[in-house]
């Protein structure tokens, strides 16, 4: 890889992720609107929100760690996008692989948790406690799925996985159980209903976001765009054969994100313990069955 290529990828990969993520946010809001028979937000609404939040005249900070938390939350995702190969750009995907990526994705959460912690608001701390518990719940099926995929493709590098699928068959055909379990885990990972107990606006005042104003909230909005993008592209790379071109990849990624969204707005939320119970029962069971088939 030449120097210019690396630099351009370092800039382009997060940028594309951001733009695609914005459209995914729009899609999410449109889906929720349509399911509730509303019109929904205008096309540029996600941009308006983010620009407005960054353009706030005043904003409050509870201290340095509050700031650093937001920097880590956004920065961790920017780093993660470079580990996620997309058509034409491999970034540094071969230096880390899927294990590194899945650990990278915990850094934004850790950053946010630190920032929220310094806000000294118990609502926020309760939110983080629930979010971490939810992470413990959805990561178990997710990690079995990752194991199954890595074992099946005989590689931990996402590039290798995509190559295998494009040469042979898509993962979802060869490992349907694991793919379903992965989708289940995705729902938890995106923190959508019925697994959004850690946001719980009416109960703990949006949990982690409680003290976030202006650019702090804006940072979390940016983080959400990355989160959706990562979830969509990662799942597409694991099970839907990645993409040979952007025209191939983007519909898949949008489809992947649309599924949890369509489910989400039809459900209320589970309590924390029920959330763990359900995520440790059904997706884990499915994933283990899937694993038994491929081992």
């Amino acid at each position, binding site marked *: 890889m030449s120097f210019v290529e690396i630099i351009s990828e370092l800039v382009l990969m997060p940028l594309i992720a951001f733009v695609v993520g914005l459209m995914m946010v729009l899609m999410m809001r449109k889906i929720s609107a349509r399911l509730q028979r509303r019109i929904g937000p205008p096309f540029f609404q996600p941009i308006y929100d983010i620009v407005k939040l960054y353009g706030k005249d005043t904003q409050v900070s509870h201290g340095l760690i509050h700031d650093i938390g937001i920097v880590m939350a956004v920065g961790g995702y920017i780093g993660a996008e470079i580990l996620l190969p997309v058509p034409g750009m491999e970034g*540094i995907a071969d230096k880390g692989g899927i294990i590194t990526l899945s650990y990278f994705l915990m850094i934004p959460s850790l950053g946010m948790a630190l920032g929220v*912690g310094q806000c*000294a608001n*118990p609502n926020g701390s309760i939110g983080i406690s629930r979010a971490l518990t939810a992470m413990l719940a959805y990561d178990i099926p997710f990690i079995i799925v990752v194991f199954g995929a890595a074992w099946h493709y005989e590689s931990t*590098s996402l590039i290798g996985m995509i190559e295998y699928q494009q040469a042979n068959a898509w993962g979802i055909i060869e490992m349907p159980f694991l793919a379903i379990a992965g989708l289940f885990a995705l729902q938890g990972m995106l923190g959508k209903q019925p697994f959004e107990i850690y946001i719980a606006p009416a109960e703990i005042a949006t949990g982690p976001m409680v003290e976030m104003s202006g650019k702090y909230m804006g940072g979390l909005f940016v983080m959400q765009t990355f989160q959706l993008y990562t979830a969509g592209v990662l799942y597409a790379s694991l099970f839907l054969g990645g993409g040979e071109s952007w025209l191939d990849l983007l519909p898949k990624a949008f489809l992947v994100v649309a599924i949890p969204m369509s489910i989400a707005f039809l459900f209320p939320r589970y309590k924390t313990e029920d959330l*763990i119970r359900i995520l440790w029962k059904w997706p884990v069971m499915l994933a283990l069955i899937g694993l038994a088939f491929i081992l």
Partner: protein
Amino acid sequence: MNLLDQFFVIVAVALISIAMLRNIKVNSIVSTLWYVLMVVMLARMSSVAYNADTITSAFSIELLGFRMYWKFTALSWFFSIITVVSALASSLFMSGDWGKQYRQQGGNYGLLQLALILNVVSMLILLASGDLLSLFIGWEFVSWASFLMMVLMPSKTAKKAAVKYVIYAIVGAMALLAALAMVYASSGSLDFTQITDAFIQMTDNMKFGFVLLFFIGFAIKMGLLPFHLWQAVAYAETPGPGAAFLGAISSRMGLFTILVVIVQFIGLGNLEEMNIALPYLNMKSLLAWIAALTTIIPTYIALQQHDAKRLLAWHGVGQGGYMLLGIMMYDSIGSAGGLMHVLNHASYQAALFLTVVAVVYRTGTSDLNKLGGLVTQMPLTFLVMLIGIIGLAGLPPMNGFVSKWMVYRSLLVNGEPLLFVAAVLGTLGTILSVYKLIHNTFLGQLRVEHQQVREVPWSMMVPMLGLSVIVFITGFMPGLILPWIASIQETIGLPVVTYHLGGIEYAKGGLDMIWVSGILFYGFGVGALIFYFLGGKAKRIHQYDNYAGGHFLSSEVKYHYSNNFYPGLMHLIGNWYRGSFKWMENVIVSALSFVSKLFENMYRSRQPVMLLVLVAVVALFSIYKNYSGAGS
């Protein structure tokens, strides 16, 4: 005199000088200098670590026809450098204001320094052992030296824990002695190489007994399941830096002996051939499962703790599982990960213990429900703890991630899904509990009584910062450590890992930490640019200016969330903490005390005649049995 002899002379002189010096100030400076000198000596011996050489000491003892001798291999060197550096950090930490406070509170500072050097010396003797007899002697030294460290705290729990430890240690020593006897019986010598010969000649059943005896002996020291109960309390209830030292390295002596005896001389290949039940369960996979359960159960016990030291000590028990798990995978990256985790764990565990001790130094408590919001008061300590918990949780870019990554990668390659899930479950539990640790100590609302708290003095700050630099550098460039690991693997007969400065080369997915950390920091940089340049100015506000649903906050209102931090999770898994192991321990203890009472009463009973009759009857019966057996 070769380098090793010089090294041991220095160690002996250090021991004597620290024991003799009565002046506190001189003592603390001198002891720190001795540790520095030891590090220098080890650095001079580094050819052992890079070229897999062996240095044999000229000194040896003939005892009852056995020749005891000492030598340094790459493995001994690796464990020694960790030991000495942890001791250096602890000694430096206690040499300044901490020691002053310790003496004011009635502690015996000289004795603490003596206990530390005794621990170091005994560990070095064990690590340098050249045959089974010197190993056993070193083993006993280590046990009693740790005991000395543990009884320094005046509290009742500390004494109780120390006594419990000694009982466990004696059981372990008995098991080890029995295994030694088996080696001696079969070969008449106590050379390490005799283990291999003795093992090959044994019948299958004897093999199980042999391996289990060794394993029980070593597992007790390392706190592996089901012998994990003694360790956490005993380590936590040790005077500050002592806890850091013990937590960092002491229990890894068990791992060292496992590596020498079970991995090097019995051989993992031989263990693999010892079928237990199904084709899937052999001795090696049994040990791997013990390791995996050791990562899970103590980690989730740690999650329940509300005392910072105990929480860390329980994690120390849990992380031991990763080391053994990696080694039991019997391949290049798995064992490299397991070995590397020894160093990584020692570095962040020592740093974390020291931060907790620093917090105790300033606030007087390590109870996580009585702290909070200290980040503004002790920012550097917070930074060290942050680096430490990222390491302990195994997130990039710290060193804990590298070793855990290698263990995971090896589990993936070997197709061990359940062990993999177990390892990840341990990591996730760790993330939960370390966040609780840092949140309840440093984040959240600052308590009124802690508003005057200040950062700890530099004598305490320097070792903490030094350790956190190690945590970061070895994570950023694992290639600095990997040559040592490779020579260890060569020495003890494991497949050797291929490495470069940034990490591991491996077909189909390696790891390059320089790139990974670089990208992470690039991300943080861009994040900071976005944050500081695209957004407006932010106003720093006081914690009482906070959202409380319209409520007015003031110093009278406690607005902090710490007690029972994970209620949802505990509601679900709380029932699983049945304490079955404690129950088992209690059963064994009461059974033993019952038997001992019985015998005591027999001896004391007023009817010696009856006793005589009983003995006579038993003797007659056995003679009869013997003869009738021979007759037919």
